[in-house]
């Protein structure tokens, strides 16, 4: 076939389309080269690096206090949790623990972040599947959470609230009241979410049986978070390797077996309810006391290697610090959940239609700065 006298097909009769780096459903600057046979995807090749800022290299020149804040710019929807991961790694190196108050604050903040992230994901999933309305419902509730964040730490997206030993400031006096109000409205609105999208016939047609990822593949590709849990892989770091006192909180790890888009969707929907549940358990029992453990002005980690993993909204974030005893890390490696989850995309999208590719990308919840770092 030729278009304006130029051959648009490859030698094997396929139609190559570049999806991204500017495309509405890649949610950032992801570039996918897609080879199509009609509408069916034959081959797919992700091209990354459009927003690679070399955070790992930068961290080698930043102090142990400062390098934490670069991670807010990685998975910007889980900024708190990224910061927490770094703070925990430094604490592990120093051999200290955050104060009891800081630990509880960290959990509440992490769960609020997770809620906000999942809400944004839910809205964008609707948008990607062609339903515009969910987006606005999701953003209304996310806005309320961002309001709490702004009140507490002065920022709405890149919070930079976690420091080694605790949190940067104490909570705002209104924090508990606001959080309780927001939780009450979110619990009510989650039912709205289900009415709007979950039971819709078209939505189920678009997601059920689409982009199936088997349990073996999920483990082999290193998928984590709801993406892997939908395939039946138990990988919730909060349960497997509890940190910050998650061992004292009652919640369920959400597992499904299908591994398709619908199961990934349902896992995240259920996780939102679990997050609300966690926050409600803790919000009335925030211990009094210091919000920060005393640390030295210049932090130096002893020689050695420290690895800490946390559960972000997208999956397992690992922070691997190699220290040579200096005031800044010798090497930092972020094992980001999106990077591994993305690698499974080409497997999941084998032989599906373009519309399904969008559904798959939406349900593995890609955040491109998290992938590129």
């Amino acid at each position: 076939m030729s278009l304006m006298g130029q051959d648009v097909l490859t030698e094997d009769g396929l139609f190559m389309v570049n999806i991204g780096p500017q495309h509405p459903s890649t949610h950032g600057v992801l570039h996918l080269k897609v080879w199509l046979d009609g509408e069916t995807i034959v081959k797919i090749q992700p091209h990354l690096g459009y927003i690679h800022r070399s955070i790992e290299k930068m961290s080698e020149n930043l102090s142990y206090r400062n390098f934490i804040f670069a991670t807010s710019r990685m998975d910007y929807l889980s900024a708190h949790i990224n910061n927490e991961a770094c703070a925990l790694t430094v604490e592990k190196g120093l051999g200290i623990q955050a104060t009891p108050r800081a630990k509880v604050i960290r959990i509440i903040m992490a769960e609020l972040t997770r809620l906000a992230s999942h809400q944004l994901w839910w809205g964008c999933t609707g948008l990607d599947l062609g339903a515009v309305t969910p987006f606005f419902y999701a953003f209304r509730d996310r806005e309320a959470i961002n309001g709490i964040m702004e009140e507490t730490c002065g920022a709405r997206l890149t919070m930079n609230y976690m420091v080694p030993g605790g949190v940067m400031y104490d909570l705002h006096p209104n924090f508990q009241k606001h959080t309780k109000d927001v939780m009450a409205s979110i619990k009510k609105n989650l039912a709205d979410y289900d009415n709007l999208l979950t039971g819709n016939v078209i939505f189920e047609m678009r997601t059920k049986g689409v982009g199936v990822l088997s349990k073996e593949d999920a483990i082999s590709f290193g998928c984590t978070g709801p993406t892997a849990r939908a395939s039946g892989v138990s990988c919730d770091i909060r349960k497997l390797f509890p940190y910050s006192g998650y061992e004292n909180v009652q919640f369920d790890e959400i597992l499904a077996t299908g591994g398709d888009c619908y199961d990934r969707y349902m896992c995240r929907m259920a996780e939102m309810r679990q997050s609300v549940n966690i926050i409600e358990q803790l919000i009335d029992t925030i211990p009094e006391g210091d919000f920060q453990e005393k640390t030295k002005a210049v932090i130096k980690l002893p020689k050695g290697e420290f690895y800490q993993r946390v559960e972000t909204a997208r999956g397992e974030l690992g922070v691997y610090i190699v220290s040579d005893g200096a005031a800044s890390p010798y090497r930092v490696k972020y094992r980001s959940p999106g990077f591994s989850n993305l690698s499974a995309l080409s497997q999941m999208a084998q032989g599906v239609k373009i519309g399904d590719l969008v559904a798959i990308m939406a349900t593995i919840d890609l955040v491109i700065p998290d992938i590129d770092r």
Partner: protein
Amino acid sequence: MNKEELKIAITEILPEITFDETGEFLNVFVPATSLLPFMNSIRSNNNFEMDYLFCLTCIDWKDHFMMVYHLHSKKHRHEFVVKAKLENRENPEIESLSGIWKTADFHEREVFDLFGINFLHHPDLRRIFMDDNWKGFPLRKDYMDENMIEI
């Protein structure tokens, strides 16, 4: 298995292995040449079943490279770190593990891109983040760039 049992079992597979227990994980130093058979056996051996490679990276120790593989077993819930030393700084080479763990595909491309480690038998070894005609490997300690400034 706990660390002691792991040490005994690993030594049975490959006797010339050394251990380092200072950190959080059990560190297993494997000669780079015997990495692939060793990884194959700990992946398929029923006592290990290390099916989850959760972190793959490299450290530039100025005189040599150290490949670091964090491994976990979903079934047995044990984990350890495999390290392989690459002495050749000019042309570092190591076998690719992408045939064992699919996640190694992307992670090895990242290490290739940023450290210049050549993974043998990798299905698609291209730069992943940097531009295709980028010169040098940014995460190496001796990496210099005309745009870099001294702090």
